[in-house]
């Protein structure tokens, strides 16, 4: 696997993730709580009974069934036709959506570093497990997209995209969601990596992304400076995306209200996701990505 990433491309995945981490990622796969149907047989066992070596169940034969799946041993014993049902191994579409708006460049370290690392790790896991991977970046709408990639050959392209995309421009999440879902095909897992600090709201965008065919993971990446700001004095706060200005005299009470609002906002997002069957994960860009992937996302069932 390490050979795959060490291509002649000037941009390599190892620029984002170190080799040791990649080696540990090899053991993981993207999981889906639902067995979702893919376009072609892959390494994923779907709930749909299909052609596979792994037996799942029997069911009575009905007219029109493929006789090749009749369990003749049971017929011999019971004199009834039963069909053998196998767990069909299907390919999984893993759609990783990365927020590259200007706000992602905020924080120390910037949120985009953590987001890009996480996206690289998830796409790596998906590609090495022969899943179909689509990587999209959005800001003021859909910025770029690497659709329907399968196999390690695409690792360098992914690295190229992640390393060359700069965080800039305002966030139009609803517009980006509309564009992304319009081009979406198949079934799978959709992972949205963003800070979700959208002035137009996150609801309409997420509502578009939630569908029967896709399992949605919402990973909110916030910097330590956003979670617990250390500001004081008379400040003119300038929004990096739209140059909106908020003049504040930072006081203890104001910071308290900010933290309460931040907590409420995150809870609101979490509730929204939970109600719609999506999984919400809040992460801190100041913390390393490796434990997040290897431990936290594993526990949350995204990887396994």
């Amino acid at each position, binding site marked *: 696997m390490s050979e795959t990433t060490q291509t002649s491309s000037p941009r390599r995945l190892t620029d984002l993730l170190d080799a040791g981490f990649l080696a540990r990622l090899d053991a993981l796969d993207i999981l889906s709580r639902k067995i979702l149907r893919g376009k072609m047989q892959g390494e994923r066992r779907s709930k749909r009974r299909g052609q596979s070596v792994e037996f799942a169940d029997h069911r009575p034969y009905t007219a029109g069934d493929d006789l090749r799946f009749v369990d003749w041993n049971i017929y011999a014993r019971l004199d009834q036709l039963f069909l053998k049902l196998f767990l069909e191994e299907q390919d999984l579409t893993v759609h990783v959506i990365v927020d590259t708006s200007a706000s992602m460049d905020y924080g120390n370290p910037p949120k985009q570093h953590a987001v890009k690392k996480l996206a690289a790790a998830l796409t790596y896991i998906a590609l090495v497990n022969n899943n179909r991977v689509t990587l999209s970046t959005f800001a003021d709408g859909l910025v770029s997209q690497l659709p329907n990639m399968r196999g390690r050959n695409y690792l360098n392209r992914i690295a190229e995209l992640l390393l060359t995309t700069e965080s800039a421009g305002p966030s139009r999440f609803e517009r980006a969601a509309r564009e992304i879902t319009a081009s979406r095909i198949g079934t799978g897992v959709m992972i949205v990596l963003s800070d979700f600090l959208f*002035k137009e709201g996150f609801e309409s965008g997420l509502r578009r992304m939630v569908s029967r065919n896709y399992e949605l993971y919402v990973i909110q990446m916030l910097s330590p400076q956003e979670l617990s700001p250390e500001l004081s004095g008379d400040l003119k706060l*300038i929004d990096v995306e739209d140059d909106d200005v908020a003049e504040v005299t*930072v006081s*203890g*009470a*104001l910071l308290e*209200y*900010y933290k*309460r609002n931040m907590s409420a*906002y995150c809870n609101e997002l979490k509730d929204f996701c939970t109600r719609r069957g999506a999984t919400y994960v809040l992460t801190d860009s100041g913390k390393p990505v490796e434990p997040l992937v290897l431990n936290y996302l594993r526990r949350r069932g995204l990887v396994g």
Partner: protein
Amino acid sequence: MQWMAPMTAIYAAAVATPLLVLMYFLKLKRREQLISSTLLWKRAIQDLQVNAPFQRLRKNILLLLQLLALTAFLLALGRPVLQLQIGPGKRYVLLIDRSGSMNATDANGSRLDAAREQGRTIVQSLRSKVAFSLTEKSDQGMVIAFADQPKVMCNFTSDKRQLLRAIDAIEPTDGLSVLGEALRVARAFAQAPGEDTNDRSGESPAQLELFSDGRIRDATEIVVKPGELNYHKVGEGSDNVAVVAMQARRRFEDPQTVKVFATLVNYSPNEVLSDVQLSVDGDVRAVRPLRLPPSRPGDGQEQHHGTGSVVFEFSHPGAGIVEVRQLRKDLLGCDDAARTILQPPAKLNVLLVTEGNLALQSALKVCPLGSLNVRTPVQFDSMDPIDPDTAAPYDVIVLDNCSPAKLPRGRYLIFGSPPKNVGIEVGDEITNQVAVDWEARSPVLEFVDLSGVFVAKTRKMTLPRDADILCEFNNSPAISLLRRHGSPMLLVGFDVLESNWCFEPGFVMFCYNALSFLGTETASAQESSLRVSTPITIEGLSPDLPGKVIAPVEKSWDVRTDASGTLRFAGTNLTGLYSVHLEDCEPKVFAVNSLDIDESNITPVREIVFSGEMVKAQSGAPQRSNVELLPLLVLLVLVLVLLEWIVYNSKVKL
């Protein structure tokens, strides 16, 4: 409330208020800070504003405080004044009584302290000059303290501190209340410019403010214009018992025995039992209780005070200081005691120069004299005194109707025609003269009744100006006192044999008094017991002799005799003993007493009756007018600025 400089405040307000509002509207210079999103910050600001109490007010509380502070500052610039006395700059003369009765302690301290305090109130109420005003004038004040004599403590000035210092510098005296001289001084300073030349300016004459208990001795001699003088009454009580007369005399028959007479007066409306103490050189010799009847109103405005006398008799061969003191505590202390200097008994050597006057000779013989020599004028002229200027062989020389060729230095009692070269002009003969007026209080005429004296014929005399006339006939002076070449001369301007006086008992008394007055014994005793403010005078000393006078209040003055060898010291303002120390001389002690029946009457007067004008006391103590609110407003500005600082800091730290 009035404004002393409203235009100043308006100009400042016109500039400062828009400036402050403009500065407030200028945005606060805030530090720019890039953040990922203002979304949550705006929500936090909204929450903070919604949840903050009085958040609308809070938003502008700094501006409000600044406006309030500015308003207070502008008001201070306008110099608001409470109870403003408006009008052009006024002038005030503060006449503060410092006589003996003002030492009464019935006004939360002495009356003089209360008068000073009221004077300070007037001074603090004077208006100062308005800033930036070219027309307005400030009030001016002048301070005069008066007792027997006026003293200008401070001339007209608008400097309040100088006026207050002048008021504080007023020292109490035990003297009499004589206002006339003080008023003359005040009017001389206070008259409006051009008043003498009938060219009156717009400036009004000064307002006289009198602070006194109203016991003005010469009130009826003073003319006051209506409204010219405001009388501020000081004091309330009348509880006082005073020694108003005292005399110590050796007995005629036994000079070692001393008799002391004292008269005490009760001024309070209640009967008083007082102990009267006699002490000699500080040793108490006797204490007698004395019951004094209350003071009662008499006919008209007269008041009959309760009077009592006490007589002590004791044996004392030498000199000493005799003090009579009433021991009851009352409001005024300076008149509770009287002192006199008792001289040792001494016999006078008297020379009578006469052609023969049996009446006079007999009268002199009954006087307790050491010796009485009789000479004719011829013998007197032929006498060669050893050193007549310094050591007179006779204490007193009596000239009976003779004019010696030369008069050696001495003390003379002259009957009939006066000696030449003393400035007395003798005129035509006059007949049938009777005594019409005499100084009964003079020691020479003490206990002498001249009402029945008749002179058949004598000569009219014209006396020099410096002569003191003690008794007057209807056409000529009868008895007079003058001094020539250092020699006191008591002149009886008629021949006693031409009158019926030699048959009167008063004639012997007069001879006794005259010899005592002129002689060393009584003369020195008389000079040693003085009334308050009477100068100490010692004659016959070496010229330009330095010395020191020590007052009863542990104060001393350096003095020096003049070219004629006379020492004069006028600072006897307080009762007590004054000692004079001169080089190469024995110290001399002088007793200064109040002994004034009017000054000891401390009952304050509600209305002073001047000549033709009655001035009522002002109701209540003077209230402070022209109270400037400037200090209060400055304090308010400071408080508001402090409050603004606290609000600003709490806003940041909340």
